[in-house]
Every structure is written in C-alpha cells, then in structure tokens.
C-alpha cells in the first residue's frame, strides 16, 4: 500500500521531471559581456551600423560568403561560399555551401544571396527624392520595408562597381562588377555583405523590424535586442558549423569603464570590453581575471589640413612627422602591447605589402632643419582634440605636442566635444586625430578609401593631391599586380613623405577583460568569435 505522503511526493516529482530533463539537455554555459555600446544606430543591419562597436556582434548572428581568419593569419576563409574562382577581372564565381539553414529554419539558396546584394536590401534603385521621404521623413506613417537612404550610400561605397549577382545554378552564383576589380574577394568579406533570409525580410512589417532582428545563418540567433540596453543571442543548434558551444550570449551596455570592471570583478559579467591599458593592472590584481587582446587592423593617425596657411607648406608637415617619438607612445601609454606600423598598411595585404616601408623616423634635428628651410617663425597651428574618444587620446596628444614643441612647432590644443566640431570649417583647422581601418586585405580598403577622391579627407577638402587621386583610381581598377604595387608605393610616398596627408602613430589595440578560466581568444579585429573553434580549447 502506498502512503498518501509518498504518493504526493511521487506526483510532485513527476511534475518536476520534464523541466529537469529539459535543463539536463542543455548543459552549455551562457556568458554575459559588458560593452560600452552595442550599436550606434540602434540597429543590427550592417548596411546601416558601420561602427566599431557594431562589428563586435554581427558575426555571431550572420555570415558573409567569404570570411577572414581573424584568429590566425588573416587569410581568406571559406564561409557560406565553400570555394570561389575568378572568371575574369570583373566576375567572381562562388560555390555555395550546401545544407546551410537560416534561423527561421529555411534553407539558404542562391536567391537569398542575390537578395542580400539586391535592390530590396541595398536600395540600388532608390532615388534622391525617395530618400528625403523615407524612414524618418514622414512622422507617424509606416515606411514599409524601404531602407533608409544611408543604406544605399554605404552599399555604393562598399561595392562601387556592383552590377549584379548572377544565379548560375542552385549552388553557384557569380558576383559581376561593371569594372575590373582586384579586390572583389576582399570586398565580399565586408560585413555589409552578410547573407540574410529573403523570406524573413519579406515577413518583417517594417525595415526597422528587419534591422532589429536580422535573420542570418550565424551560430547564434537574435533573441532580443533592447536598444541602448542589451542584445541577447541564443544558440542556433542547426548551425552548419556544428552546435554552438554557448547556450546564450548576452551583451549589456555599461557605459562607464569603472562600472564594467566592477561588474566583472563581482562576477556579474564574464567579459568586459574596451579596457584602457591603465586598467589592466586593476583587473589582473584579481587572480580570477585577465586582460587579453592586442593590435587589430586599425592604425591611429595624426591628420593634416593643408589649407592651413602654415601647413600648406609640405616641409612643415614633414617636420611634424619627424618630431613624433612613436615608440615612446607605444611603450609609455600602451605598455609595449602594440607596435609602430610600416605606414598605413597592414600585414594581411599579402603581395601588396611594401615590406621595406617605414614610418618617418623620430629625428628632431631633421624636423628643425625642415622648419628652417620652410621659414617657419612659430605661427600657431591648432590641434582640435577630443577627450579620449580614442583610448589614450589625450595623453598621446600631450606627448605629441611636447615633441612638436621640442622641434620648434607652436601647436595649440583646442578641446572639442565631438567629431563634427573637429571637422567644422568654422575657424581654422590644423591637425587632428583619426584612425583608419582596413576592412579587407588590400590598400584600397584603407589608403584609397580614406584618403583618395572618395575618402573623408578629400571630401571635406582637408587634403587633396591630383597625382594621388589618379593613382587611387588606378589602384581600384587595375588587376595587374606589379602595376598596383607601383601605384601603392607611389601613393605612400606622396601621402606620407612628399605631401603628407597624415602620419601613422601606432597600430590600435583592443583589450578585453575576462574570466581567466574561460578558454576564448580575441581576434585581430573588434569582432568576437564564439564559435566552437574559439571556445574551450587550450589556454
């Protein structure tokens, strides 16, 4: 005979059983990551969110056709395209990976790839008049799935020669350009080319709904996005690359550095991003925590406005470049965690890398000689400065100004609140800070994109050089390696020595504080990889 108490206990246990079984089924850990910001634009659509902070999350929920080995040698990796081959200078044929599922359960097809580069997503057919009335232009009215105008501008910039995606068969597509382009493979690694579900886009009520919850193929799906607060990603167990190692990833916005560190030390978060180097010792005083990271594909620069009466003379700009003790900045402010790069170029340029190129040497005597030759008599040159927009920006500026003063340059720091004030044409611009990334493995991605005729310096009329402009066009359209190497070399000579547009300071460092017991490694970019290949391995 069963006692009443035993029966009740059995019934209670039976009720609890399914829940227990479900809990047992998923033993994977979850992690919480404190970040300064999740997205600048409050959207997760990379055609709008172009910031560094946005690049931290996108590769968990979406993927491109070709990937970059950020954890390794920075070479190209097959991703949603298993392989690719050049048809000619304008066309690239890609074989799509079979059996890839979107987060909505649909199988990825060639049509989805065509859609992801097509007018619906990239807005190729949008007119200027339409642009004025989109998204925010008509308060209170639904805007449908039409993209905001900046999407088209970003698409045009990323794929300037784009003509079409040709569907060859169910698993083959061709990316066709109007003009020859040696960088097509690299351009396809850009996050703007993430492949999204056409059906899911069609089911979204508005563009904003799509942009807040893009349906991609990544190892984690977007579960919840609360703008300015948190982004929750959940494991997508049908991921083509195998079951993701984490059950859930939660990014939370903690704007203050001290608060991020406190959250880490108190055990509330597992990672704290955007660590300034002076906080490394604070974190590592805890035996349970460490700071990881190193240089990424981004360089810090000092940029010149050659319209300034003094800076119009290239000799004075050259004097600036020689009066910078770059190694002192690296050692004093970064504890040697970064390095002085070979000018505005990156290791993954491969055959285009100019191995023997160097940043201007620190030589105060040469700087003084150049100033004498230029007839410089100490006229003030403004330096518009932001308060640590870039990590260590203000102390770097102080070192720079002291070096310039030692050479005889009279540089006056003018504090500004934001970049529009730095770039404003009100008053006289002089020198300023900037950073340049290389989004893919070719100088077109940095030197040409940032300083050529389509780049910011040229567009805001800070620096222009006709020969450089012509070479920039050549670099973009030529597919002859030797011709491109020569053009790149000459562009470096112009922009860094003869008629300086900028001068490099050091490679950028990205530091992440984390629990020491978590086996995860940072890549050479802002993005964070939580695939199985980067979780749980050897320390």
């Amino acid at each position, binding site marked *: 005979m069963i006692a009443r108490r035993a029966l009740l206990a059995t019934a209670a246990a039976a009720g609890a059983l399914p829940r227990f079984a479900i809990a047992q089924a998923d033993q994977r850990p979850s992690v919480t990551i404190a970040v300064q910001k999740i997205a*600048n634009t409050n959207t997760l659509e990379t055609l709008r969110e172009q910031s560094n902070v946005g690049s931290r999350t996108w590769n968990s929920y979406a993927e491109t056709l070709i990937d970059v080995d950020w954890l390794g040698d920075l070479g190209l990796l097959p991703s949603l395209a298993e392989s690719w081959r050049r048809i000619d200078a304008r066309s690239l044929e890609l074989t799509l990976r079979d059996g890839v599922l979107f987060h909505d359960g649909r199988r990825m097809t060639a049509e989805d790839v065509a859609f992801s580069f097509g007018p619906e997503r990239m807005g190729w057919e949008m007119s200027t008049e339409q642009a004025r009335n989109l998204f925010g232009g008509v308060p209170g009215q639904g805007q449908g799935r039409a993209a905001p105008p900046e999407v088209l501008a970003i698409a045009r910039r990323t794929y300037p020669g784009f003509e079409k995606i040709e569907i060859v068969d169910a698993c083959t597509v061709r990316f066709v350009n109007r003009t020859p382009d040696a960088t097509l493979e690299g351009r396809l690694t850009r996050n703007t080319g993430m492949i999204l579900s056409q059906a899911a886009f069609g089911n979204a009520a508005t563009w904003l709904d799509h942009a807040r919850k893009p349906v991609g193929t990544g190892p984690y799906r977007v579960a919840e996005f609360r703008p300015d607060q948190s982004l929750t990603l959940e494991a997508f167990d049908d991921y083509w690359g195998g079951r993701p190692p984490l059950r859930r990833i939660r990014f939370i916005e903690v704007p*203050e550095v001290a*608060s991020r560190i406190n959250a880490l030390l108190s055990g509330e978060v597992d990672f704290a991003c955007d660590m300034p180097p002076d906080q490394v010792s604070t974190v590592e005083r805890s035996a349970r925590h460490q700071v990881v990271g190193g240089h990424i594909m981004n360089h810090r620069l000092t940029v010149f406005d050659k319209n300034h009466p003094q800076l119009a003379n290239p000799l004075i700009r050259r004097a600036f470049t020689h009066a910078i003790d770059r190694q002192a900045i690296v050692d004093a402010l970064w504890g040697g965690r970064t390095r002085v790069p070979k000018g505005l170029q990156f290791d993954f340029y491969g055959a285009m890398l100019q191995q023997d190129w160097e940043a201007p040497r620190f030589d105060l005597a040469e700087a003084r000689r150049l100033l004498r030759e230029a007839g410089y008599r100490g006229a003030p040159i403004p330096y518009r400065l932001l308060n640590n927009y870039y990590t260590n920006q203000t102390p770097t500026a102080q070192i720079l100004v002291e070096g310039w003063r030692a050479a005889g340059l009279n540089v006056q720091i003018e504090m500004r609140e934001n*970049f529009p004030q730095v770039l404003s044409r009100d008053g006289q611009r002089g020198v300023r800070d*900037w950073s340049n990334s290389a989004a893919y493995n070719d100088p077109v991605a940095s030197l040409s994109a940032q300083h050529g005729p389509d780049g910011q310096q040229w567009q805001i009329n800070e620096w222009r050089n006709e020969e450089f402009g012509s070479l920039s066009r050549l670099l973009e359209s030529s597919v002859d390696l030797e011709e491109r190497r020569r053009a790149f070399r000459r562009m470096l000579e112009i922009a860094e020595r003869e008629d300086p547009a900028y001068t490099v300071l050091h490679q950028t460092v990205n530091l992440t504080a984390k629990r020491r017991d978590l086996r995860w490694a940072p890549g050479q970019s802002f993005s964070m990889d939580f695939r199985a290949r980067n979780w749980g391995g050897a320390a």
Partner: protein
Amino acid sequence: MFRFFGFRALRAAITIVMVVTFAFVVLRLSGDPALLIMSVDAPPEAVAAFRTSWGLDEPLWVQYVRYFAAIFEGDLGRSMRDGRPALDLVVERIPATLALTIPALFIKLGLGIPAGITAALHRNSLLDRTVMALAVAGFTVPSFVLGLLLVLLFAVQLGWLPSGGQESWRHAILPVVTLGIGGAAVLARFTRSAMLEVLGQPYIRTASAKGVPWRQVVRGHALPNAAIPTVTIIGFMVGSLIAGAVVVESVFSWPGVGRLLVVAVANRDLAVVQCILLLVAATMVTANMIVDLLYGLLDPRLRNAPRGAGG
C-alpha cells in the same frame, strides 16, 4: 484664483519655449547629428544622405519653425537613431527612472528632515556636529563617487548586491541609496537652518514663557514655520523626479530617462533631447506651482497678501 493660475501658466509656457529654443540652438550649433549617429568613419555619401533624409541640410531657422509647428500639432518628432516617435521612447523609460527617484525621494524625506530637526533641536551638541558632518560629507561627495564606493563595498567586496543593470528589485538598491543619501544631506542642512532661524523667533520664546510644553512648541509653532524653505527644496526634488538621476543611471547602467538623455545629447538626437527637456520643464513648472500653492496653505500671510504687496 483664476488670475493666480493664469499668470503662472503663462510664465510656465514662456519658460518652456525658452528652454526648447535654447536647446535647439545649442544642440544644432554644437554638432552634426548625421556624423555623430553614422560615425566619423561612415562614407561621406551616407552622412550626406542621412542629413538630407532628416532635413538637416535646410537652414536652421527652417528646421526651427518646422519643429515648433509640429509641436503645436502634438508631434514631438522622431528619434534620428531609429525613427521611432521621441515621445514613445521617453515615456517607456519613465517608469525605470521613477523606480529609482520615488524611493530615493522617500529616503531623502525620511532621513533628511528628521536629521535636520534633530540637529537643530540639539544645536552645538555632539549629535548636531555628527549629523552635520555626515550631511556635509553626503552633500559634497559627488554621486558618481559615492555610487562607485557603494559598488566596491557591496558588490565587489561583499558580493551582496549587483553592481548595475535593471533585472530585479535588488538592482535598484544601490542607485536608490546613492540618490537618497545626497538628497537627504541637502534636506538635513536646509531643515536645520530653517529650524534654527525659527527657534530664535520671539513667538517661540513667548510660547515657551507661557508654559506651552516644548514638544508642542516645536510641533505647533516651529515646524510649520520652518517648513516653508524646506518645501521649496522638496518642490525642486519632486520637479527633478523624471531626469534627476542622469549620473546615477550612467554609473549603474540603469536604462532610465537620464541615460536616454545622455545618449541622445551625445548623438544630437534632437527630437529625443527636446522631448525630455519639455517633460522636465513641464514637471518642474508644475512642481513650482504646487509649491506656490503650499506656501499659501502653510503661511496665511502669503495667502491673504494683496497682489503687488511683494513676496
């Protein structure tokens, strides 16, 4: 009464127009929202397209007139970051902020007023000096320092409370205490000063001389008269309920109106900033009007004074 309200309502409306105009001019002249939202590394064409779509390429006065015309139609504009109505964004953050500021207000009142009264009644004693030393400390330590100290102690060292976020009532404890302590210190100082001034008045001596028990003198004569300056401070605190936790919300990553304001100002998201300022100005003006009414209730001389007789 109608003139009383009419005059104050007009003054309030002028105040709000001035606040909004000032904010519009300052924000528009001190940063380009397109470059701030799209980021400095966005392609120049994307920044230009953004400007065009939001009418930021129009002359400033055209933008101003358009903005004000829309306000009179009940449209406070849309956030440039995600296109949502600014009012919706602000309204959905208000409960989070009130969840901090209302309990903090109770701490301020419950701690500050008794402390101030006690200190005044024990003037120059050890108790008075201790209370005032604590009040000066609470008043002078900035809220972000106090907040971080509390986090270091209760979250990092002791592990009793979370350091930030908004997931449970426990997450609210440290920010509420941080807000409450600073305000309580201010109230304690004001209450003490007001009480000391009143306790020195002839009518207090007269009441005591007539044999009225001291407790009754304090309750019946001192407290009501000392309440007037204290009510002014409380009115200010009530007025800042909506946006009075900007720093604390940032330190504790609390997603309230204060954090929204910081993000919106940083991005020059004009509609959102102006919507918050409108709400804050309206709350402050309303609180001031209530304080004016309370003055009349607390002090019959003010209630019965002829208009233009000063005060």
